[in-house]
């Protein structure tokens, strides 16, 4: 016992020393390489932009994706910047979600110039396909690097798999479970109570398109709309709700003006392809998010129904990618809230 106690004391001295020295070496020689490896470069963007921006726009690919036919290639944030006297910059990366933004906002220093932050509120990111996405492991790894902690601490977390590291098969299994078991917020008369029932009915022609068509490509797209948007947000357990709630808390702590930009979805196509039930579900989710975050003290800019179906770049998929008309509309809509 005495021997063990002695060894424990030596370890308690040498262990932290090793970690301290490792942190110095790691930060100096390897940290940037790891940020690149995990595509976590937004942290480097933030380091410089927080000191020369009045407003930071935290976004995924919705901000900068442009259509091939666009003559104006400005992103939403750049459009806002041209229209506003304030310096507006974007911290953006494709296929990320609120958890990433949360970590980045935690990294904003108290002496930073930035006083207003805009965070995209993507209603689709609350759905099961995104929560159980195959990309989640990579996003979670990058999120560890975005944490406001010692670099060596983050490395230790990564090497010890201390992040959401579930296998793709397990994620697929959970997704299927959500689709098969989660009841939808639909009227009593509507025969399909889960995504799986609805999707099967649509795919097998039991449930025809609203115009009575049996158009296969359209049915495939309609099925995709059902799987993407047919969900009811469970405010107690949805991980995205927790992330956005924490963003509100952190923004308050850091005394930052917080604006959530509720992104436009292709409501028009959802309505025409699938019908009023899906439209109703989407509107319910929209209302829930707007009410929840307005109540919590954030400004919620509602762009949900603002963009016409034809102004979405991807006509055969569900994304929040807009052509220049759509982007200008959104930029102007958000700008109304920035004084």
């Amino acid at each position, binding site marked *: *016992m005495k*021997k*063990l106690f002695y*060894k424990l004391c*030596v370890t308690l001295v*040498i*262990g932290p020393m*090793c*970690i301290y*020295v*490792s942190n110095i*070496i*790691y930060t100096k020689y*390897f940290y940037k390489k*790891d940020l690149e*490896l*995990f595509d976590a470069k937004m942290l480097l963007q933030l380091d410089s932009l927080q000191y020369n921006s009045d407003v930071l726009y935290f976004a995924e690919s919705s901000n900068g994706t442009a259509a091939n036919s666009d003559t104006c290639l400005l992103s939403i944030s750049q459009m806002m910047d041209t229209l506003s006297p304030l310096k507006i910059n974007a911290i953006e990366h494709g296929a990320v979600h609120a958890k990433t933004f949360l970590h980045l906002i935690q990294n904003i220093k108290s002496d930073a110039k930035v006083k207003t932050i805009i965070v995209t509120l993507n209603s689709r990111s609350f759905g099961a396909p995104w929560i159980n996405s195959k990309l989640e*492991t990579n996003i979670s*790894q990058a999120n560890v690097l975005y944490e406001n902690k010692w670099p*060596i601490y983050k*490395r*230790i*977390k*990564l*090497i*010890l*798999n*201390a992040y959401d*590291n579930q*296998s793709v*098969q*397990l994620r697929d*299994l959970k997704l299927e479970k959500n689709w098969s078991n989660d009841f939808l917020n639909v009227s009593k008369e509507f025969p399909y109570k889960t995504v799986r029932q609805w999707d099967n009915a649509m795919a097998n022609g039991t449930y025809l398109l609203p115009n009575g068509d049996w158009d296969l490509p359209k049915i495939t797209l309609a099925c995709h709309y059902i799987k993407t948007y047919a969900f009811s947000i469970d405010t107690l357990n949805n991980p995205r709700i927790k992330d956005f709630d924490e963003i509100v808390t952190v923004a308050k702590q850091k005394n930052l003006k917080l604006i959530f930009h509720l992104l436009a979805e292709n409501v028009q196509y959802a309505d025409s392809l699938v019908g009023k039930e899906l439209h109703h579900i989407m509107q319910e989710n929209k209302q829930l998010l707007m009410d929840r975050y307005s109540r919590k003290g954030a400004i919620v800019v509602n762009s949900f129904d603002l963009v016409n179906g034809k102004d979405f770049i991807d006509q055969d998929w569900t994304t929040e990618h807009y052509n220049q008309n759509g982007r200008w509309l959104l930029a102007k809509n958000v700008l109304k809230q920035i004084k």
Partner: protein
Amino acid sequence: MLFNSLHFLIFFPIVTLLYYLLEHKYRWILLFVASTYFYSAFYLPYIFILYFIIIIDYVCGILIENSKNKAKLFWLLLSIISNIGLLAYFKYYNFFVDVFVAYLPNIKHLDILLPIGLSFHTFQSLSYTIEVYKGNQKAEKHIGYFANYVLFFPQMVAGPIERYDSLGKELRSNHVFKFENISNGLKLILYGLFVKMCIADNLAPLVNEFYSNPTQFYSSSAWLALVAFSIQIYADFYGYSTIAIGAARLLGINLMDNFKQPYFATSFYQFWQRWHISLTTWFRNYVFFPMGGSYVNDFRWVINVLLVFSLSGFWHGANYTFILWGFLHGLFYLIEKVFSKFIPISIGKNKIFLAIGIFSTFILVTFIWVFFRAENLDKAILVLKQCFTYSSNATKELIFSYQTIVMLVVLIFIEVLIYKSRFDTFLQNQKISVRWAIYILLAFCLLLFSGIQSYQFIYFQF
């Protein structure tokens, strides 16, 4: 739960502490709960497969002991069919559907997750009922101890595949707290983590990159990739086994060694005495010997050897590539046996001859690993072709980072040092300064040079 996870880093000290605080008679409950929790962390519903194995083999063990002749055989067959049936359903069903698709066109693939380590715990549990049947082992009456034999968390998902006469005894013994066990256990865990995280996980991305598109790479890189996989698979499995042995040691429980520097083997015969020893002895005792072992005519012996090696390949995975991998090992084993008859014993002890033996065995084993790693036979042939032909599509070199090279040097250095012992016993005989220098070196390697991307232990899939 992975050994190299924060989850395990919290779980294991708590279990160890409670283990030594509890009275011996209650420890089986702790180990049962801890093992259930450990396995459930992968995927909860599959723990019931293990419970099923436990109940079947526990009951069969008692019934075998209490029966005679045909009834005895019946209970053994029930145990074998139940265990192999589970394996066949979860692991081999889709393979057989592919094989018989022409005759049974309406049968569809199963879309299920393969339970982690199923081949390990079914084989471990089967060895118990077989030994009870042979009369070498008394049936265990305490279901708790038997459950822990199948479930014991340090080795449940990737071995070593223990036998009841050793692990059962260890689980029943009252292990008092000993500093030596804690110290040696921690040393083995540290070294196992180094081997897995600093070697296997640094080589994994290189090997994956090569195997994803081998034709892109120059033939020199193909050779390098083959050697890299040889080291990766060794480091991955050896690392896991070392951590498993270390973790059990912390609880005072000794597990068998699963590796003895296999790449220093001078022949295929030696290689299989040093690689995955617990599986080799399993197949030897429960498949090869019952087939007649070496006490049959030459033709039967050749067939038996090839069959056992091919079966051991099939045990690894439901794919022709694994069968061929095992078959090739059997073939080279036989060729070696034939040639060894013509080599005088004095030459066999010559150092140059031994070095040639080590080198040639390593090269051949490395080539055969291609069938283990490639997803299908076409890919395996493509990889082998890439080693020997000039490809006009080749544009890439496989580049080892200097960290990886340094880690490999450290591994080889330590493996040479511990050639005749084990890491823990080797360190015991060193001065305190040397010991601490090695601890600090390994700690720095782990902190700074371990592979940062997560790669699951390769053998978990088996």
